[in-house]
């Protein structure tokens, strides 16, 4: 089985209204349960805003700490799911469903060496 990272891309801007968000969370949770039942789910999680991020960078012998995300961008990763799937088509199908549930673009990317640990 190959592991795939499904990244959820979120645009900058205000979060959707609570009622909208509630529906999204319900759909995402239902999909997660389905992934678990199909033994495809490996891990998933949502992330706080990029403004909460801290970047560490090697500088000579020390490591520099800076506030903020590594890249300022119009979109950022709002969360991710890791699935295991027999091939890209199967992973894309989970990705397609995650896109519908979150209403956001999903990037599907394979792990090196299958991702098995």
């Amino acid at each position, binding site marked *: 089985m*190959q592991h*795939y990272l499904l990244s959820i891309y979120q645009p900058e801007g205000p979060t959707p209204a609570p009622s909208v968000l509630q529906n999204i969370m319900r759909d995402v949770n239902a999909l997660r349960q389905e992934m678990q039942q199909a033994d495809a789910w490996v891990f998933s999680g949502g992330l706080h805003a990029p403004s909460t991020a801290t970047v560490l960078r090697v500088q000579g012998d020390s490591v520099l700490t800076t506030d903020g995300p590594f890249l300022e961008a119009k979109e950022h990763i709002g969360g991710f799911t890791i699935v295991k799937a*027999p*091939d*890209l*088509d199967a992973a*894309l199908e989970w990705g397609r469903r995650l896109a519908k549930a979150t209403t956001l673009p999903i990037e*599907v*990317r*394979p792990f*090196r060496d299958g991702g098995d640990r």
Partner: protein
Amino acid sequence: MSVTAAEIEQVFREQYGRSVAVLVRLCGSIDAAEEAVQDAFTAALQRWPSAGLPPSPAGWIITAARNRAIDVARREASRESRHDLAALHEPADDCEEFDMDMHAIRDDRLRLIFTCCHPALALESQVALTLRLLGGLSTPEIARAFLVPETTMGQRIVRAKGKIRDAKIPFRIPEHAELQARVAAVLAVVYLVFNEGYTAKSGERLLRADLCEEAIRLTRQVSDLMPGEGEVKGLLALMLLTDARRAARVGVDNSLIPLAEQDRALWDSSLIEEGLSLVRHCVAANRPGYYQLQAAIQAVHCSAAGAGQTDWQQVVALYDQLADLTRSPIVELNRAVAVAEVHGPEAALALVEALTLDRYHLFHAIRADLLVRLKRPREAVAAYDAAIARSENRAEREFLGRKRNASLELFS
């Protein structure tokens, strides 16, 4: 009987795709499959000139490539693990059967086509991979055909193969629910190859016949593999009916000759016959689609004894259907050309001017033609100029330039 290198080259072009497809199933890797097939052809080049062509060149190549793949895997296995060797040995045992089993080979090729035309690959990569793996074209040949540097094309192919390997794009025939969309993707790729050959997007030569022939060959393959698909038949018919006019379309000085002025005696009647027969099959099946309707329109043109005898009513009716199906402004533009023949240039010009296709050179060229017919020379010349400025093909630009100058003389 001695065999020349040219004949082996011919076998290579015809059998490369089939051999790679079978080897991909055995090796599970495109790179390993290609390497094994290349080695098999190298062996053929050494052996066949003196030993003569084997009874089944394809069977010989596939068997030699399979043996080669087993050797390679064995060597790697002794270095790495015994596990891989077992995996490869197993399918190899039924190799004697698959040599004969056309069904298995058929499915191998279908699987490879669908992998090459997978929507997770960029369209340009799909085209390159299809020409390379199914058409047997070399990377320099594909680079030349698409006027990109060899290194660019090489990187494109390597990257696409890498994605197939790393992201595990499967080698399989899509399931029923997605089959239609995936077939459409395959047809889009071969149609792009054909169009690239028919009107080279840029550059000097108007026609790159080799690309047209390659596209027809690939579509024939897909049609053999999926005989029930109306759109595949439709695309094949469309290509045949278009390609049949190749000799009449280009003048001695490599200039472009429009349909109405072509010498119909130069049309290839056997290609037209085959195309018309396919269109009749499509019409009888009565499940019209994008390619079938376009083929039907070409069939009307090809059935007319002379340009004056064209059944324009029928052409307009077919464009009506096509416009309903596609909602494409380019279809509307072509429909307007037929409308001009039935309802006159005034009605056609109104249709054309309602379209927003400013960047498309044929929009301006067709508008210019209609303005000439409406005796509005000044606007016609401006429209020809706009068309010339937007065309990337030399022969086409010269053709438009001649029309522009003719319209000037007509009214001066």
